Structures are given as C-alpha cells and as structure tokens.
C-alpha cells in the first residue's frame, strides 16, 4: 500500500475519527493519581544521583525494589482494568433496551461504567436509577442518570461479588427512596 492509499484508508476508517466519551478524562486522571499514590516513583533527581554513583550494591537493591513495585502495579491493574463485567437485557417495559457494564475496584469503591442504550424516554419528574442486588433481594442504589442512550459512570460502595445483579429502573422524583419496580434493564455481572 503506498502512502496515498494508506492516507485514503486511514481517513475512511472509523477509528481515525473516534471521539472518547467525556467522562474518560476523569477516569484517566484519577487512575494516574491513584497509581501515583499507591506506588510513588523514585524522584528523578535521586535516580540521576544514583546513576552517577555507579552500580553499587545499594543501587541495585533499590532498583530491584522499584521494579517489583512497578511490576506489581502493572500486574495488579486495579485502577486500570475492569474487574467485573456483564451484559444487560431488556425487560417487558423496554423491549428495545440493551446495555453492558464494566466495574473496576478502586481505592474509593467500585466504579461502575454503564453503557445503556435504547431506554424508554422519561416523563416529567422521572429519572433512571441503577441498583445492585444480592441473592437475598437486598437492593443498593448506585446512582441516578437521565440519558436514555449513553455511557455513564456510577459508584458503588458494595462489591459486585456480593451484589451481582444490576438493574435499572425508572423512578419518580419524590420522597420515596424505595424502588418503583419499573425495571427497564437487568443482568448479572461476573468477575473477568
């Protein structure tokens, strides 16, 4: 393929034009901040001084410790890789809906990245609410949103290991904090 053909192919390829979702910026920022807090690097100035001193036994040992710390951070991948995922299925209330979820365990809790599509439109003073449910039927609310066709980031204080069923309901905006039971999407999440 010559350069002109390659340029044509690239300009016609969807990945060339892809726009990341708006919330990815915050996800990236806090992933790096989490990593920096969990595994502080050796300061560059100190690293330079150590290089000038040569490969003393102390420097070799420090480098090994640093390498192990970085390796553990990469392999652990807690901030960078989803730990649970699942597909969500439509219910009778919203036969055209579908979605998926990826959940990452972070120091702050469980970050739930929900991609919900084709939800029925909301009425006045209504919103979508996401819940995690355990085997006993205990429901834990994990956030509300209003877009019927988008990606949203929610947070959970309970583990999907113990609360493996995710449901989305339509809720009236009122003083009743219990679920309305109007489920529009549901599915189980599984450890990756």
């Amino acid at each position, binding site marked *: 393929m010559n350069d002109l053909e390659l340029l044509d192919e690239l300009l016609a390829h969807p990945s060339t034009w892809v726009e990341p979702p708006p919330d990815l910026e915050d996800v*990236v920022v806090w992933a790096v*901040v989490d990593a920096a807090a969990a595994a502080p690097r050796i300061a560059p100035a100190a690293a330079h001084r150590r290089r000038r001193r040569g490969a003393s036994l102390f420097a070799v040992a420090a480098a090994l410790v640093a390498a192990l710390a970085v390796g553990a951070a990469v392999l652990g991948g807690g901030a960078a890789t989803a730990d649970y995922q699942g597909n969500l299925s439509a219910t009778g209330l919203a036969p055209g809906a579908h979605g998926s979820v990826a959940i990452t365990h972070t120091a702050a809790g469980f970050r739930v990245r929900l991609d919900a599509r084709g939800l029925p439109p909301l009425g006045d003073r209504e919103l979508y609410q996401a819940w995690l449910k355990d085997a006993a039927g205990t429901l834990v609310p994990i956030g509300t949103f209003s877009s019927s*066709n988008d990606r949203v980031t929610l947070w959970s204080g309970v583990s999907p290991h113990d609360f493996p069923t995710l449901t989305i309901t339509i809720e009236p905006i009122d003083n009743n904090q219990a679920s309305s039971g109007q489920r529009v999407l549901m599915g189980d999440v599984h450890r990756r």
Partner: protein
Amino acid sequence: MQRARQRVRPEPSSPSRTRPGELPTVTRSKSVGRDDLEAFRDGDPAGVRALYQTYGRLVDAVAHRVLGSHELAEEATQQTFVRAWQASDRIDVGRDPAAWLATIAKRNAIDIYRREARRPKRALDDVAADDPALVTLPPDLGALDAAWRVRRAIDELPGDEATVVRLQHLDGLTQQEIADKLGLALGTVKSRAHRAHQRLAAALGHLREAPA
C-alpha cells in the same frame, strides 16, 4: 494490513459517541508545556488532565484502531496514561512528548489485543462479532504510526474543514451532498475541502517517517 486469521469481518464500531442526528464535529487538541509535563511527572491531577486533553484523542484513536471496540480502547487509553506516568522520570520536559507517548500507546494497545486473543474461546455464536480474537491480527507498528500522524493532523485542522473531510471520507458523501447537509454553498465546501487536503498533505509529509 494483516488479516491472516480473519473469519468474521464486522463493520467497525461507530466512530463517535455522539447522539444520532448530531452533526459530526472534531474537537481540536490543546497544547502541552513544560509546566504541564513537570506536573504530570509529579502525579498532579492538573498535569494529567493537560496531557490527556492534548493527547487523549490520539491515544484513544490508536487503541481503537488496534482493538476495534470502544470499551477496550477506553481501557487501553487509561492504561497508557498510567504506564506513561510510571515511566515519566524519562520525560524530557523540554520536548514534545508525542513520540514517547505514541510508543507507549501502541505497545499497550497491542498488549491488550494479545491478552484478549488469549482468552478462552467460547462457542462462535456466543462471541461478539467485533471480538478482536476473531477479526484481525493487530496492525503493524508502521501502520499505527501513520494512524497517529493522521489523527494528529486532523486534530490540527480548523473544525469546519475537519467536518468536511470527515463527511467526504468517512461518510462517503459527495461535495454536493455535504453542501446540502451543512446548508453551505457548493463553492464553500470545495474551498474547505481543498484547504483541508492541502493542510493534511503539508502536515503529514511522508507517512512512513517517525511519528511527530
């Protein structure tokens, strides 16, 4: 491009997360300076944000090119910035970090591609049509360099010119159809397309050179 293991060739996933009916737009990147790079190296959120705002779209585009799915591309983008921070004691804060970050982005995306390809296989009917294990081998590094350079050149186009290039190349519209869609005179579309292609040609130079 290698397609040795191709069994299913789905349509690539949608390029944007815009709502149906929205006109496509291309957002221009900001620039990153010495202070931003020093802040990134320190793990300062403002520095991370500055680097992401300049290069996040490029990293995401390269990851999407390799992995073919929004979800995996976002994971790859996140990992790329974490790995960049882990290696940031090697940043020369006086230089444009684009080539350094491009190298991390490409290798990281290919690592994730290989990880996904190693996952236990299920029955073919249960596997998503865009599962990278089914579709292609990852592009070679040279092709990814070109993808990075083209995306960067597009980001540097004025928004109205980028929109015309996108409608022409990605959506396959004629210049008359673009004029109708945007409510512009045909001559305006022609001049924007001409200027855009001149800028792209000037910015790209030889595609096989090292990534800028």
